[in-house]
């Protein structure tokens, strides 16, 4: 069963289906777009994000590669040098690591090293993060490895309609994009019309306005933050939730405007806290909003451990309760430390 032809009217659609639609529409509109990776052809990918695409667009547009991630990214670089716009899939987060040299030393740097003469419009799709009962090496949140690497755009998505838009924008971008898909949200549905209209690729979005605290997050934990916001009203906290969407570049404008207003901020992500993405958010908020902050920016993150096995992952993942715990520690009574 193919999920590539959705009606244009609002209808319940999963993130997986929305991403599939984004690929289909990009393939249909731009003949330079090709899709490659392990099992993306006949099988439609282990998460079925490429379902039906090989049948519809043919094996010259969508195909299975040999099993080698450096090979996938390395050849995509060569294809992009020659006019194509490859969208490659890494099967799981930790299986992108063999491609790290190609990503870091070439994909990120080619435009720069050639003074802008060679651009590499490659999208590297990476299903990332945990929460699906996956065994070791299947649940890493590897965003910082990429956000720290100048030359890469890094994007996450959190909802079907935004996932559709972001992936289409990523494919249209002249820059290489690491596109992180929170696998535990693949099956979450939203009633939406998929369209390109909306915020640009680099913009963060306030997904829930609030007065008291700004909760900054992205990808898989946006839903968790919204849950916290809903629970928070019962405890008397009015949380503003920002979905960063673009992790690099960072949308300072949207985020600092919010934090200057609320005076308090919590950053949430699944990845380990130490040198995690939240460190950057906290550091730049302290720099840019120092005198507006009533409390330090707190981080709610995974522990500083390898991703745990399925039966323990619930302890590791940020929960709505843990977010509210952090909110309650934001020095509401101005205690000194």
């Amino acid at each position: 069963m193919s999920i590539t032809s959705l009606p244009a009217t609002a209808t319940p659609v999963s993130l997986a289906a929305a991403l599939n639609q984004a690929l289909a529409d990009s393939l249909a509109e731009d003949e330079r777009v090709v899709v490659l990776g392990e099992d993306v052809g006949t099988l439609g990918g282990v998460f079925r994000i490429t379902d039906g695409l090989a049948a519809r667009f043919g094996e010259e547009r969508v195909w299975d590669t040999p099993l080698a991630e450096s090979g996938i990214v390395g050849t995509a670089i060569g294809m992009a040098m020659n006019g194509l716009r490859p969208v490659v899939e890494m099967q799981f987060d930790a299986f992108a690591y063999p491609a790290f040299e190609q990503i870091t030393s070439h994909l990120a740097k080619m435009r720069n090293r050639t003074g802008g003469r060679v651009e590499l419009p490659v999208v590297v799709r990476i299903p990332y993060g945990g929460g699906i009962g996956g065994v070791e090496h299947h649940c890493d949140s590897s965003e910082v490895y990429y956000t720290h690497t100048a030359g890469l755009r890094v994007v996450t998505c959190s909802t079907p309609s935004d996932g559709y838009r972001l992936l289409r924008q990523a494919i249209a971008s002249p820059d290489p994009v690491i596109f992180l898909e929170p696998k535990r949200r693949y099956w979450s549905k939203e009633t939406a019309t998929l369209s390109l209209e909306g915020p640009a690729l680099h913009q963060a979005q306030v997904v829930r306005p609030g007065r008291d605290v700004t909760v900054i997050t992205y990808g898989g934990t946006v839903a968790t933050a919204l849950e916290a916001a809903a629970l928070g009203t019962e405890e008397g906290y009015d949380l503003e939730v920002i979905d960063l969407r673009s992790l690099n570049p960072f949308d300072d404008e949207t985020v600092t405007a919010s934090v200057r207003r609320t005076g308090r901020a919590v950053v949430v992500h699944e990845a380990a806290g130490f040198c995690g993405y939240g460190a950057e958010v906290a550091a730049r908020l302290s720099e840019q909003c120092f005198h507006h902050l009533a409390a330090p920016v707190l981080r709610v993150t995974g522990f500083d451990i390898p991703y745990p096995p399925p039966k323990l992952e619930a302890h590791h993942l940020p929960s709505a309760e843990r977010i509210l715990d952090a909110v309650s520690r934001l020095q509401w009574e101005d205690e000194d430390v």
Partner: protein
Amino acid sequence: MTSTQESPHDITAPPHPLLPTPAPVQLIDPAGAAVGPAPDRETLLRLYRAMVIGRRFDTQITALTRQGRLAVYPSSRGQEACQIGAALALRAQDWLFPTYRDSVAVLTRGVDPLQVLVSFRGDWHCGYDPYEHRVAPQCTPLATNTLHAVGLAHAARLRREDTVALVLLGDGATSEGDTHEALNFAAVWKAPVVFLVQNNGYAISVPLAKQSAAPSLAHKGIGYGIPSHLIDGNDVAAVHTTVSEAVQHAAAGHGPVLIEALTYRVEAHTNADDATRYRQDEEVAFWLERDPLRRLELFLNRDGQEPPTEFAAEAEALAAAVRAGTNADTAPDPAGLFGHVYAEPTAALHQQQADLLDEIARDEEARA
């Protein structure tokens, strides 16, 4: 031309000492007939016992997985001749480097069945002590274990220990750069390693034709200076004999050996996979006809001999123990998350553990 020069292409002779024979080595054919020198009956019965038990273990886990008692299971079904023929070719002092697919090899090496299941149940990443039976943790990042095997074997050599490392990998894993580096390091260092590629025709959904254009995967060996063999992987006699000889070769200081065993994965890639999307029932039926366990049974039955029946009872007992052992749902201790990140937990990890335990205590209080 004389008639000797016109003799048909000899499929038993490799065209170069490092190349495999053009046709896979087979000692027992699919009909159970001897076509080469099979191992002695005692060895065959050892193999047979392990195959009866291994098959039962595998089908039992598959059944439990269908009932939702495991997080995931990549079945060994159809590949028992490879995994068991190879595992039983190892000596006590040798090491096995298995993948996620090789639970039956791990079991055959002596690891407790419930310990094998720990990782697939989601309790912890590796459920057994690798040093106890000299079995590395089952490895998921493809081909990475090939390098570990080379390093371990080379260290043994440096330490003048008589240890061979046997590493298992799939046809798909041969495409990864690590396989190349491992074959090369092993050859240059003359490390005592046996590489056994279980070519089961697929890497998840991707068939061999999209994985390699080589005459065979065993043809890779010559590019490293490694002697290579192509064998029938559903013929446990061929696997056992070839791997045993390779272990001897490596132990004697002659360096690594590469073996490609042709076999088939009867189940889907894992329980999460839908194999009907990429392969035909007829193909599966064809391979079920070549079932490795039945082939050995036919051979043991030849001339009206009776194969022993006590192994079936042993296998049933093991299956019952597996069922019993996986009956209760286990909940690993959350404090275990922090204890083995470093030799000593850091101050930060101590704090994180205290916070978590505190949170759990508060939750329980709230619920009480």
